[in-house]
Every structure is written in structure tokens, then in C-alpha cells.
């Protein structure tokens, strides 16, 4: 492999990792969480917290589930379709952008969401960093 192609290949492989630092955020009153706890809420195993999702058109959604559980969105969807059609859980509400997620978790101590690290501000608390 010649050098320019090697560099191109390396930068293509690193590119998706470089800009994606997803953080799980909650209300200022919410204690920090482990990855296992966050997984339980977002994959419908526990209803103790209210997870807030993003639209599938946002790349952060696929990144979030990949980092959280190693699953792609079709697997996540299959999991949720099992839960929804067993009456066990209602899927998370999908919010259009990071601002909407921040607003919702700031107002509700039970709500948790995820945004890019660069979008964190003082209205919310970082509960978990996913890298």
C-alpha cells in the first residue's frame, strides 16, 4: 500500500471516532450513572427513569446505541418492537435536537437524554460519558 492511500485509509477510519463524543445528561439533581444502568433505561428493561431519544435522521442516535450496547439501530428497533408489542414498555419520545433534550431534562428529574459533549451547558448534568 502506498503512503497517500494509507493516510487516507487511516483518516477515514478515524474520522467517525474523532467528532463523536456522546454524553448522557440528566437533571442537575440526578446522580451519575453506570453504562449498565443507562442501557437498562434506553433498552426498556427498567422504567425507573424516562429516557428521551433522538430522531433516526440524526447521526448521534446510531453512535449512541453503538457505544452503549454495540447494537445497530435495526437491532435496537427489533428490541423495542418486542417490548412495545408485549405491552411492557412505551418507546422513548424522540426529540428533534440537543436543545430540546436539554430543556426536557432540566425540567424533569426523571428524564435522561444524550447529546454531543460540545453541547453541554450549565442547565444539565453529565451522568455518563460514552467514548
Amino acid at each position, binding site marked *: 500500500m502506498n503512503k497517500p492511500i494509507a493516510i487516507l485509509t487511516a483518516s477515514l477510519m478515524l474520522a467517525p471516532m474523532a467528532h463523536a463524543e456522546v454524553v448522557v445528561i440528566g437533571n442537575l439533581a440526578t446522580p451519575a450513572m453506570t453504562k*449498565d444502568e443507562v*442501557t*437498562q433505561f434506553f433498552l426498556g*428493561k*427498567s*422504567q*425507573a427513569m424516562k429516557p428521551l*431519544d433522538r430522531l*433516526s435522521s440524526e447521526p448521534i442516535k446510531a453512535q449512541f446505541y453503538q457505544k452503549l450496547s*454495540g447494537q445497530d*439501530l*435495526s437491532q435496537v*428497533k*427489533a428490541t*423495542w*418492537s*418486542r417490548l*412495545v*408489542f*408485549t*405491552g411492557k414498555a*412505551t*418507546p*422513548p*419520545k*424522540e426529540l428533534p435536537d440537543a436543545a430540546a433534550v436539554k430543556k426536557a431534562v432540566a425540567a424533569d428529574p426523571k428524564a435522561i437524554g444524550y447529546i454531543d459533549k460540545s453541547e453541554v451547558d450549565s442547565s444539565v448534568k453529565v451522568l455518563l460519558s460514552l467514548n
Partner: protein
Amino acid sequence: MKKVFAATALAAVFLSHTAEADIGFNAIGDMFTYNGFGTAGVARSDTDGGEFVQEFQNLGAGKNFDWKTDSKLGLQGTFAPTTWLSGTIQGLSEERFFNHISTQIEWAYIKISPLNGLSFRGGKMALPAFLVSDSRNVGYANNWVRAPDEVYGPNQFDTFQGFDVAYRHAIGKYSVTVGALAGQTTPSDFMVYPGVVGVILGHELRGYNASVDLDLATIRVSRVTSAVAVLIDNAIIAKGLVYTFTSIGATYDHNNVVGQAEFIEKRTDGSIAYSFNGWYALGGYRLGKWLPYAIYASGERPGGAGGTVPELTRHTESVGVRLDWFKSVDFKAQLDHITGFGGGFPNNTPFVNVQPGFNNKANVLTLTADFVF
């Protein structure tokens, strides 16, 4: 012309909606959410000697492409005025024993969750006799084209009216769930022989189940007991038969490997003819958007009663592939090689309307598209 245009536009809107929308939070107001699922499928057998059916069907697939064996459409709505109280209703249209394509209310129940992990329900619900009881009709939630009939066919009852309780306890990323139920089954129709229809009803229904979720694997055990009454032409021909249905199942999903297996045992005291044992194992490997898989399923009605009840066996070898190409829509193709027995109730047969000389073997090709919204 206008009508055709309107129908085409409607279909286009519907398809683009299902192709784009997620299984998600579809809400009307603050308290009502709805979701839907469906399967459009065709099945074709290489023989007309016997029609291939799933349980509770009396017409099936022959050499013509038959769309009724697997196609279905379900809608579900949940009304949740508070976080601890909700009401759910689900309607399902599919090919059934009577009435053929018809819509029925499968579930209508009230759920109360006084504590996290604890829930009580009352109303009409799916009878959780299996690993995949309530999401069995949701093609998108399953990797196969249809649940193996060797295991899922012998249970006469899909739904019940009554109460249940479930409690889930989490330990780190693992959890244990235990449940119990009581009530009576929804009456179920069956064909005694062509032209004569019977009804089975389970009274004094009790059920117990436990499952362990080990993150990568889930193991579930369940037992359902009932006192069964059988009616033919409105005359009671048997009652108080002690019916016991036991199932043990497990699923595995890690990296790209998918596995699922289940064993069932049906016993009815007083008649060996109603007993059945079955099992299946599924293995698959995810290759990006493709999931090729294979299933082996086997079932037997044990013989006995001094040789008057012969042993009957059936088995199916299947290979298939699931493709997740679009959002919320999957496509599947499955080829089944079925070896069975003819005749009707109570033997859980894969073939009906059997012609003389039929060797009880068939190869069935099924193509489906499943969607959820």
C-alpha cells in the same frame, strides 16, 4: 381514475411513512400512544397433495402463492393517564380457523404499576406459555418467518381473560423476572374432521413463569395448567381434563451470533391423544444488514393406550435470511422442508385437505416483508 389515484397516493403515503418512521413514540395528546405492526407474505408449496398451514387455519398454501398463511396486520393503542396506570388494546387481522381473514381484539387490559418493577394487569391478554408469546405475531421482532409449529402449534390457547402479576428485580446488568396468572382461556375452535367443528375452553387457568436476563442470554421457564372442556356441536364430550403445558426456552445474541431454542411438553390427563412434545433450535450469523439462519424443529405425539394411539412425528428443516435494508421494514425469505402427518385435530398437523396418496412431505418457500410503526 380519481379513485385509483387516491388509492395510489394513500398507499405511497403509507409506505413512505412505514419506511421512514421508527418504532417510536406516536402520540395523540399527552396520554394516548399507538403503534402498529404487520407482515405481507406469500408462501408456496411444491405439492398440492396437502395444504401447508399454521395452527388454527383450515386452508393453506399449495402450489399457488398463498398470501393468507403469514400475512397479518396489528394495531395497538395505550392510554396512560398517569405513570402507574395504563390501558392497552390490540387488534389483529389474520387468517383464522373460522371467518378466515378477520379482525379480533387480542388484548384489552388495564395495567397498574405501584412500584418500579412490579405490575398487575387485568383483562384479556396473551397467554405467556412461550419464550415468544406476545410478540409472536410481530414479524419484525423475530428472525424467522413464522414460529416453529412443532412448538407453537400444540398449545390450544393464545389468549386468556383474568389477572396477572409480574415482578422484575435487577442485579447490575442482570435481572430476574417472576410472574403468575389466573383466569380462563379464550375458547378455541378446531376441526374434528371436515365439516365438524369443536371448541376447547380452559377453566381454572393458572400460570407461573420465571426468566433470567443475563445480558447476552435469556432463559425462561413457564408452566400453564387448566381444566379443559371439549365441546363438539355444542355437546360437552369431555370436561375437567387436566391440561399442563410446560416450556423452557433460551435466547442468545452476542457479537454477530444469534441463537434461540425452546422445548415444550403438553400433557392432558385422560387422553394420550392430546399430548405432544416439541423442540426447535435456531442459529444465525449477522453479516451487516443480512442475517442468514437455520432452524431445526421436531415434534411428536407420543403413542400409547395399548397401541390404540399411534405415535406421530413431524419435523422441519429450514434455512432463511433476514434483510434489514430499510428503517422499520425487513424482508425475509425462508425455505422449509417439512415432514409431517395428515389428518386434523388433535394432532397438530402441518397439512390439511390432504389428498389420497400424499406422502406427508413438502418444500415450502415463503417471502415476507415485516414492518412496525
